[in-house]
């Protein structure tokens, strides 16, 4: 099963490499990874999506917790949560396709953020599933480049991940 694991860690050089190294060292899988500082400059928030059975996920959270730089770990998929990913996708857009792409982007509530006579760059925000669906729905349109931010997640309601 796919899990979204959020990690609060010391914003220090080397901290990220410990997390990433742990995944490769212990043969855990990384689907996506994002990391950036939080409102507290001494802390970074890292979100990793991974796939594994309960035993593997339990090991991942336990092993992450063991890292000295890691302050807190939560598996967001255990509770109600929101996930978002940002995608920028550059498409060949000429002739009929220009209108077609625009229509599809509108349906998915994407925005065209860069335009040239032959290309569109579409920005889209949503769950990874939605971004996947958009790519599939483009059908005949030819994709030049896809950039995805990786998943960020946050728990619904009052629950927070903080010190």
């Amino acid at each position, binding site marked *: 099963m796919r899990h979204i694991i959020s990690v609060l860690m010391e914003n220090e050089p080397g901290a990220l490499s410990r997390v990433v190294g742990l995944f490769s060292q212990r043969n855990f899988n990384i689907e996506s990874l994002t990391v950036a500082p939080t409102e507290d400059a001494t802390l970074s928030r890292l979100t990793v999506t991974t796939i594994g059975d309960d035993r593997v996920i339990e090991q991942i959270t336990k092993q992450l917790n063991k890292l000295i730089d890691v*302050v807190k770990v939560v598996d967001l998929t255990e509770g109600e949560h929101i996930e978002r990913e940002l995608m920028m996708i550059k498409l060949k857009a000429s002739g009929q396709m220009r209108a077609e792409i625009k229509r599809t982007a509108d349906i998915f509530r994407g925005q065209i953020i860069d335009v040239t006579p032959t290309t569109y760059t579409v920005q889209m925000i949503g769950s990874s599933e939605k971004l996947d669906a958009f790519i599939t729905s483009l059908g005949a349109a030819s994709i030049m480049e896809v950039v995805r931010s990786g998943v960020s997640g946050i728990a619904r309601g009052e629950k927070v991940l903080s010190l």
Partner: protein
Amino acid sequence: MVVRALRDEGVKYIYGYPGGALLHVYDALFQQEDVQHVLVRHEQAATHMADAYARATGKAGVALVTSGPGATNAITGIATAYMDSIPMVVITGQVMSYLIGEDAFQETDMLGISRPIVKHNFSVTRAEDIPEIIKKAFHIAESGRPGPVVVDIPKDMTAPTERFPYEYPKSVKLRSYSPVTKGHSGQIKKAVDMLLGAKRPIIYSGGGIIMGDASAELIELAQLLNFPVTNTLMGLGGYPGTDRQFVGMLGMHGSYEANMTMHHSDLVLAIGARFDDRVTNATDKFCPTARIVHVDIDPASISKTIQADVPIVGPAKVVLEEMIQLVKASKKQPDAEAIASWWKQIDEWRSRHGGHYRTDDSELMKPQQVIEMLSKVTNGDAYVCSDVGQHQMFAAQYYKFNKPNRWINSGGLGTMGFGFPAAMGVKMNFPNEEVVCVTGEGSIQMNIQELSTCSQYNIPVKIICLNNQSLGMVRQWQDMNYEARHSHSYMDSLPDFKKLVEAYGHVGMKVEKYSDLENAMREAFAMKDRLVFMDIMVDPFEHVYPMQVPRGAMRDMWLSKTERT
């Protein structure tokens, strides 16, 4: 500042090797007398010496190595300590901070290289942080589940021209690191209830008892309950080897009775052990009728390979104390009748194999005989530091350890070359104790250069070399699984060890007949202030038994070359 911090931490010995990046530190060492430095001949030996000190005392050992090759030579020793959860602080020199990343002379990314094999590592970026970082390094290394910590210090951070206010912190707090100090009381209650209801119980304890200083508590609980006890390779000495309730080591080369008892048990109380693959054999066939109570300081060790029915995260000593209190206070008593018939069964298993080996089919000495003699001559009281291979398993099986911290070996990583420097590290710190290195002609040659260090510092360890002229364990596997094709497991150009050690100024002995063994050994141990190397010729065809059948259950074992369970 580095040396001052080590002094204030109470460090007596450090083991190391100088180099360009450490010249300032070595100059500071020269100008003081509190911290004594021991110059090894290879950095790997420095780490093993520090590691063995930690294994014998429970306190972190310290190694000091220079950048580049000094640091990479230390890697095997760091990994050895990591796999066995041994507290150690390794200080590595680094090139000038402004040269980092430029492929400078003797530069390696020590933080990157050591990352997967340390509990934590630090890089010094401001000289004034050195005292605090060193304090943190010791705190992290020694607390919780112990482990090695690397502190990488660029040369310019130790420049004597720069002066900073120095204060060594009494304690440090890390917001992201707070190891548990106590087990969950509810879980402990539940576990004790299960213990008291068990009909076929066994206590399976490991290195956590040794490093967690919980041997006395383990003995008290086991004797209170009259339960059988088995120890892992790392846990030997945690329970007295000569006690009736001790059923021997378990696992791949565990005793017949230990493995049978495990397999047929209805309750396994695991303490400070991690269900390693060399213990469990095939996990899907592991102890099919047992419920598992697992006590460990590291939550990640619990349910990693074997699902625990009652997980308890906490230090072995504290959890055991609480269990003892509860057992004593409980109205419920262990089921004496069931336990008695369980013991009857165990004693039957014991009499079936009981560690027997054949001595009648050849003139050659059996390695088991040598270890039994060693146990006799040293009254089971020596610090036994082992290398890796058949001799290690024979020592584990036939030396009867009655005290904790006296069996010192590389269990997890299986590092050949560990035993000799380990013995040196122990001997320096316990000069009045008998310290033995049990080794083979293969392992000893991996760090034999340290004979020179022993001459320099007069470290009179006793080296018992079980010389079978082959890499015995490799050869055993080749005999059993590769139709005796002995690919590169021969040692056909061995040195004359007697002459070799004499060249370093030590005493060498060669023993070829069993009838000479006892006298020779007593003679060797009578030379209190000399290093004695006993080159003992043993049967090259001997195998270690029992040996679990690969991918089988605990009970599936070879008992000799021809007998199987």
